[in-house]
């Protein structure tokens, strides 16, 4: 099967963060099998994030530190999480393993977690990235045993004599079988099985504390036994509802928010029978003819991260101020490593309101054009907010327009517009006349002006 320009852009929008002109020109002549195989081949090139932290992050308990030590550690931690945020964003923006990063980003939304400990968060992010296209079982176990998640969902406080149900509830409701497939009693019993799942201060590795674990018999999801946490996760994976829950979420996120129940059933069967092979599921989706149906194209709205990364991938933006990308994330309401809650971000039209649409309309000109930033961020109530100091940041960047200009074949504004639109849109704007908004005569300036005008359009927000 050969793909049209729109279908190629569609594939790269969904399997990654958009296509650049180079990639576009390269894959134009290939068929879908070749293109998808190539994307999967490149996905193996990812590298774990290695953030070097100031070596003297103390390992003692926060409560036992002196006031000065506390202040210092809070400062270091904030910087660490910021560094991690930008490091991951950088991988998304430049790595050839974009499919791996896109999947990891999806799992970050699915297994949503945030913490101010950069060591914990780095380890958690790497679990997501390592297993993003691997086996869902490994991913589920890895995340559930990460210090970041154990801390986030209070499992450290889950003890034999005083169980805390937070993790047990969310692992069922949000991570595996979904609402309606378990009872309150199942949660209570599962919480007992997860007692003793913990970590040591400063160490992201899992630590089982037998003294806090409830070794007695539990009855959960129709089974009886002296279950521990591993057993509960395995019981959840045995339920086909888990495969269906994950497939539905992936379908809504990568194919169409309106679910097609027949396709979901087919994909669920093969996902379950493959013992939760994520890569295989994604390959099936991207190689299916129905994925390229008109009704599945341009049905999503780019999340703030997807939007920002798409600019970066297309124009190789060089940021002159390291806070710029943090400012933009905050202004649009999606900050990597800081999801709003364990439910993750609300996608689709929930990203769009009057402020957001104006900001998105102006963003290309703010970052790459001549518009000056006068956007005021919402004040957070938190006195320790790591992004509190971001105010009226200078958002200027550097882009070498000659590189992209050299790839553009045509000279006349109308033709340049068409050529750029081909790789920018999966739903190209109709009847757009830029005549009155283009002033340049030099080709490189023309390319820049036209590109920015196209990026401003609501059509570009579609994914």
């Amino acid at each position: 099967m050969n793909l049209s320009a729109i279908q190629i852009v569609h594939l790269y929008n969904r399997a990654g963060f958009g296509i650049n002109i180079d990639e576009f020109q390269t894959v134009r002549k290939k068929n879908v099998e070749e293109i998808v195989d190539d994307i999967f081949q490149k996905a193996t090139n990812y590298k774990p994030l290695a953030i070097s932290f100031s070596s003297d992050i103390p390992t003692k308990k926060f409560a036992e530190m002196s006031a000065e030590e506390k202040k210092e550690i809070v400062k270091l931690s904030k910087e660490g999480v910021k560094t991690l945020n930008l490091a991951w964003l950088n991988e998304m923006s430049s790595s050839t393993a974009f499919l791996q990063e896109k999947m990891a980003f999806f799992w970050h939304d699915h297994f949503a977690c945030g913490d101010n400990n950069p060591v914990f968060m780095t380890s958690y992010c790497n679990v997501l990235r390592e297993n993003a296209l691997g086996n869902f079982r490994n991913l589920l176990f890895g995340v559930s045993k990460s210090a970041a998640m154990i801390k986030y969902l209070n499992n450290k406080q889950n003890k034999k004599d005083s169980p805390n149900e937070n993790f047990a509830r969310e692992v069922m409701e949000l991570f595996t079988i979904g609402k309606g497939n378990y009872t309150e009693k199942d949660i209570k019993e599962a919480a007992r099985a997860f007692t003793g799942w913990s970590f040591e201060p400063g160490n992201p590795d899992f630590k089982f504390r037998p003294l806090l674990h409830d070794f007695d018999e539990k009855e959960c999801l129709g089974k009886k036994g002296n279950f521990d946490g591993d057993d509960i996760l395995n019981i959840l994976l045995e339920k086909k509802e888990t495969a269906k829950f994950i497939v539905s979420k992936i379908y809504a996120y990568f194919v169409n928010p309106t679910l097609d129940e027949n396709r979901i059933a087919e994909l669920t069967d093969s996902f379950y029978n493959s013992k939760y092979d994520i890569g295989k599921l994604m390959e099936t989706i991207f190689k299916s003819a129905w994925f390229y149906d008109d009704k599945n194209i341009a049905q999503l709205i780019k999340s703030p991260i997807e939007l920002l990364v798409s600019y970066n991938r297309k124009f190789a933006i060089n940021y002159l101020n390291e806070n710029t990308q943090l400012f933009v994330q905050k202004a649009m309401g999606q900050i990597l490593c800081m999801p709003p809650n364990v439910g993750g971000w609300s996608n689709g039209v929930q990203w769009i309101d009057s402020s957001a649409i104006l900001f998105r309309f102006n963003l290309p000109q703010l970052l790459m054009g001549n518009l000056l930033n006068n956007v005021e961020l919402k004040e957070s109530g938190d006195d320790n907010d790591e992004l509190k100091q971001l105010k009226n940041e200078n958002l200027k960047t550097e882009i070498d327009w000659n590189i992209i200009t050299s790839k553009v074949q045509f000279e006349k504004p109308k033709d340049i517009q068409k050529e750029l639109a081909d790789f920018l849109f999966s739903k190209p704007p109709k009847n757009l006349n830029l005549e009155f908004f283009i002033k340049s005569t030099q080709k490189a300036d023309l390319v820049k002006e036209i590109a920015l005008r196209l990026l401003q359009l609501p059509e570009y927000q579609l994914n």
Partner: protein
Amino acid sequence: MENRRNFIKKTMISGAGTMLVPSFLKSMEQRVDLQSIESDKKLIVIQLSGGNDGLNTVIPFKNDFYYKNRPNIAIKSDEVLKLTDEIGLNPFLLPFQKLIDKGDLCIINGVGYPNPDHSHFRSMDIWQSGSSANEYWNTGWLGRYLDNFCSPNDFSSSTKGNARLAMELDEMLSLALKGNTIKGMGISDLEKLKKAVGNPYMLNVMADFNFEDLNEPLVYMYKTMQETKDAVAYLAEKSTKKQSKTDYPQNKFGKNMQTIANLISAGVDTKIFYASLSGFDTHANQNQRQGKLLETVANSLSALQQDLETAGFWKNTLVLVFSEFGRRVAENGASGTDHGTANNVFVLGGNLKQAGIYNPIPNLEDLEDGDLKFSVDFRSIYGTILENHLGLNQHKVLGNDFKTLNFI
């Protein structure tokens, strides 16, 4: 009269009474009823971001336990503005004392929710969405009010400007005002916004767009742009009509309250106004910081009250003042307080059923991990406002029927 109003409200909401009415008539009827009965009601929500220390706001000045736990930051009993023999206000809240005397301010104590969360973000999320602590909702309670207030037809007929029905005095819109189909709008500076929506390229792009396009997310984005533009034009026209001469504090919050008073006085159809004041996260050197902030709140709201009274709108206005949590009973080592739970909520209005102290403050000696226990679920207050002020069945917005209170 009251009964007829309630009857109409109830039948409108349950749908049972309108079952036999053809649907095109029903939507007409619904719109007319809502507008004629309730459109004059206004709700102003004030968010104190950071977790206002309730115990130094509404003070149990006869309680030894209060003074024992706060050797450095307790407000001295002779400085407290006395409301009863045991409870008084922070000295910076003098205008509030006057409003209580006037019968226009009610204090609800011990407001919270089960399994309280100590994180700013999460707790604010819960207050703004109106969910329980173990639920994660992606819409706000006022947004869902909008969803129910506006019939879907209003939205699909495009440019009526539903967004302006709820306005936040900020550039970014809070979750509280985001509904499933309708969202409020954020405005911090009308002039700036006027410039933004007057962008020639944007106007050109909007004019060229075919609103009949079948791509729903795309139409949604263009409609949002169009609605914003229309709302700005509407507000710009209205805002020249009324200029308050009352003194407001010379800061952003004071200015925001003045904007709200001007717009309401000019007769805008906006029903909900939302504004925040930040800085209440007083982990250190609390008293001076909190005093200044409380003074801003009280003076601004007092000026707003005067303006609306003069303009004749005060009797239809309700103001709700809340914070995402209160603070711990005991002070910390830095003359401040750390994150707590249950807190007091202020309700102001020209048509209150009850003013002053609505209910007792929580027992300071019966704590849960150092925190006060709540006695009133915050959604009871939302439910009361929805039903008794805005005239909407709370179930539609909160998914539950909370016990309504008796303050309005």
